């Protein structure tokens, strides 16, 4: 007897391949774990030795290069309500640090 052509065969194989690729990627994360940890430890050591506080992802302005140390008024250099000057500012929220730049009268408002 002639079997009718089954359409599901190749499609199931395709799903199997994609599933295997996803599993391989998950395995890759686990497999690369020790090397990754070693690299991150070296990087953390460098951060401690140099005394770094911020990531060098956005280097265009003071407040995008060092968001944690920037003056609280720098994202609004032109006017308190002005739009951000640099494109990175639209990706990066303005830090909401409980620093001395705020007028906070109650210690509990400091939000530690």
């Amino acid at each position, binding site marked *: 007897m002639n079997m009718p052509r*089954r*359409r*599901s065969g190749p*499609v*199931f194989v*395709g*799903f199997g391949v*994609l*599933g295997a*690729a*996803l599993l391989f*990627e*998950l395995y*890759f*994360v686990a497999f*690369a774990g020790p090397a*990754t940890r070693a*690299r*991150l430890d*070296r*990087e*953390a*050591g*460098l*951060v*401690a*030795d*140099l*005394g*770094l*506080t*911020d*990531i*060098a*992802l*956005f*280097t*265009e302005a*003071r407040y*995008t*290069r*060092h968001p*944690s*140390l920037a*003056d*609280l*008024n720098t994202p609004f250099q032109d006017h308190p309500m002005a739009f951000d000057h*640099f*494109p*990175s500012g639209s*990706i*990066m*929220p303005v*830090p909401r*640090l409980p*620093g*001395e*730049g705020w007028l906070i009268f109650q210690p509990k408002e*400091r939000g*530690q």
Partner: protein
Amino acid sequence: MMTWARRQRALADYTLAALSRRKGKNIALVAIFSLVVFALSSAMFFAAALRHETTVVLRDAPEIVVQKLIMGRQDLIPGDVVETIAGFRGVTSAKGRLWGYYYDRINGANYTVMVPDDPALIPPVGYVAVGEGVPRARGLAWEGAPLFLSRYEGDLKRFDVDRTFSRDSALMTADLVLMNPQDFRAFFDIPEGLYTDVVATVRNQNEVATIVTKASNASPQMRFVTRADIERTYQKLFDWREGLLVVLAGAGLLAFAIFAAEKASGLSAEEAREIGILKAVGWDTRDVIAMKMWEGGLVSLGAFLIGTVAGFAHVFLFDGVLFAPVLRGWAVIYPDFALAPHIDGVQLMTLALLTVVPYMAATVVPVWRTASGDPDAVMR
């Protein structure tokens, strides 16, 4: 069990045959759906890996940074403040730091110029250590090429490159120029006894908040940034709900909503007729719904798998190359970094559920109404 499996296989065969009747439309559907998942999963992987790397690496950031504010701006801090801070109970050491920015007029890049905290890493006088982005931005192609920095028209200062940080730490060091304190003071014309800010270490981590409160009462014009503050800044930066991801996620979810709405708003006349015919030739309502579940499942699961696999490859094998122009902004130096592979399982599950379940529901629900009706009425 065998009968059930054979039945499901036959339903899958039928569904695929039905899908291939509108081949162009369905291929386009899977392609667009995959693209939405790809954008979302890439952003998710990227943000999760960046957050992971940042959290791990910044765990040894300075415990307390003290800045002096004058008229809302950061100002140079005099050396006697260092002793005052070191005198606070619970503080083990305090040290003045020198760092600042240098705008390179030759290529328009900003460098972060620093004197390293660790004396062992301070380069000799006349030498600098640079991040991998600096030689790249300046086109210093050969090993040992000196770095010339110009502060104003007619000025040129030569530094020899002592060390270049590798790509492994590019995320933290790409734009750094490390100098000897003597060179730093001469280059920026900073008098002895003045510092950019002060870093303090404490004996007991739990006392940081108390020390900061006491210290800020004693020196109200100072601003104290703790390691927890730095951590919070970055948590917020990579938070799913704001910042980096909100743009991509917003656009993706909107596209997805249009998909689902189009599906759920009702069946086309052709689809309704098909269901009527199936019912007329003896299919059960249950069979029709099972067939539609297959349809929704094949499309959404296929799109999820394609999108996620491609998203992972994009972020971890191709270093998120499509994001670079967005993240670069107007900056001249953008770190050439490879992210450490990291997957947040909960996020991956959320993405799977968000893509597969609503789509299947949107496929099945309108069919329910039609399939439970009279075949004759449905076909008309």
